[in-house]
């Protein structure tokens, strides 16, 4: 399985580039995951990216799962920019919130019947 090296430490990923252990995550890991080219386009993290990533993580730690997309869009409208919609989130994270944003935020892929 793939690995990623951050600060001399090797972190285990799964086949799609998600961190196997979400507790190993910190901001430098996020930078490294965003720059990684093995699992999609590399992403330059801006302030807007960071806002979303931090929201995802906070929600995950509180409720055990990444937030539903409709909730994320609603939150972004209030906190990122008023004209933010799903399209804009896809602009920030080309492979979508479930794939790119969750991967960079170190969260496991959302599963179940969703």
């Amino acid at each position: 399985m793939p690995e990623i090296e951050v600060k001399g430490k090797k972190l285990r990923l799964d086949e799609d580039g998600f961190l196997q252990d979400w507790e190993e995550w910190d901001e430098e890991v996020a930078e490294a995951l965003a720059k990684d080219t093995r699992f999609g386009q590399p992403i330059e993290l801006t302030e807007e990216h960071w806002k979303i990533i931090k929201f995802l993580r906070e929600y995950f730690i509180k409720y055990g799962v990444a937030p539903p997309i409709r909730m994320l869009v609603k939150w972004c409208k209030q906190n990122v920019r008023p004209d933010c919609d799903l399209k804009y989130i896809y602009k920030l994270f080309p492979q979508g919130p479930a794939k790119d944003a969750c991967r960079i935020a170190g969260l496991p892929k959302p599963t179940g019947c969703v």
Partner: protein
Amino acid sequence: MSEVPEELKIKQKFPNWYDWIEPIKQEDIKPGFASYIALPKQVNSEFFKMPFGDVERDVFSEDWKLPENWKEILLDAFKETLEKNRAFKVFMDICVRCGACADKCHYYIGTGDPKNMPVMRAETIRTVYRYYFTKAGRIFGKWAGARPLDENVIKEWYYYLFQCSLCRRCSLFCPYGIDTAEVAWWGRRMLSRIGLNQRFMCISIEASSRTGNHLGLYAGGMAGSIEQGLSELKDITGFELHTYINKPGADVLFVAPSADYFATPHWYVMLGYLLLFNELEERYGITVTWSTYASEGGNFGTFHSYEAAQLLNSKIYKEAERLGVKFIIGGECGHMWRDKHQFINTMNNLPKNPEWKKFWDDPDLGQLSDKLKGINLGEFISGEHGWIHVLELVAALIRHKKIDIDPSRNDHWVATYHDPCNVARGMGMLEEPRYVLRNVMNKFYDMPEHCIREKTYCCGAGGGILAEELMELRMRGVMPRMMALRYVVKKFGVNIMLTPCAIDKAQFPVAVEYWKIPVEIGGPMEMVGNALVLTSFGEKPEDRKYDLRGTPIRGEE
């Protein structure tokens, strides 16, 4: 429909019998068709432990890290399965390979891979059975269609048993009634004994045994989500609605798939439930509670092994007993109903709570409210063992004129109905959803006869196949259903396909985008919610201006 999907080639192969008995090799295992193997954190956690689950395995590497004495363990499990399950033993012996099932499988139609024919899928196991458990196979080997176990055979089992959605369309057409899904199911269980578990379903099973639902959502997240639903309903209807969570002494426990309060388009179905329950409480005094412990109706254990099914299945009855409810309403979920219909009364003890027991023996709604006398849930297929499907309940309420309906509120929708395999074929709920839809909307059209009701095509993602890495298999498997849908879209101008199954609602939006069919996906309860007039709150039929999606009804802005 000018857009066409990218071309998808179906390569058909016709091997002779000498070739098919050869197992596949590692290089035949292709991405897009092979499921990832579960990671230790899923199958070696304190909530869900599987034998040899502590090793990380990669489905695309040559070495699958099987335990040393895997042959012994597997054959022991095989023997045990044969001894314990007469059906499995019979299915091993009686197949005459007539091929009636071959073109009934949506995965075979979509992939053209001969080993995806149901007969061949089961044959991967039968060949091993013949070698180790029949004399002819032992003596004549290949000439009797038998083969010994080796690692490639195991790889073949894993690859093909997890390309089956256990939908059982094949068994419907089998002249002997062989249930290939059951063969595949026991095959999956045998694989789980030597450490090979499919990842997608194990993530869900582990999360469900840890938190109560497949998403791994904690109680606060669930409650917050339902609250958000109530506030959305206030915008739509103008009424302050409410609901209960974990309320002891409520009349009814409501169990829905967790996706209903999380994902879209499942979400609109949840709004429909909430409207119905509020009307029932206001009008008949029936209190309905959600539970954060039994916060999932579905059961991915049903696709994994008998033990995992039992592990997840028990929580619903435990919770019903704890809260002291009289009966359980089940939401729009697929495998929950197969699970409930076929296992729940043998996997759990009978209820001790006298109220529940009374209702269990005589499921007459008159026990809850005098005004509902005469509605007997025992008339319905799901109305046994203290349960009722929400759509059958709605059918009963409409039939007895106990709720007010304004079908014209759904006039902007032209709908068709997809039967989920577990609800239609697995349980037998065929007419009630159609009865409900014909009553709550004016424009409802069925798809062609050979692909609805008990002959329904699978959505291509059931049975634990809803994984991201299986996208190519999913899009190929859904092809027959999409062709039927395209037919009704062209003929009747259908613009929404309704289905009471959470997996379907997750699979179809991706599928219609891939196959370029311009329809929305939803659930029947969404249409019920649109059409339901909240008479007890003082609502008039013409009061509602927006449907549950927020689009204006009657084209008003």
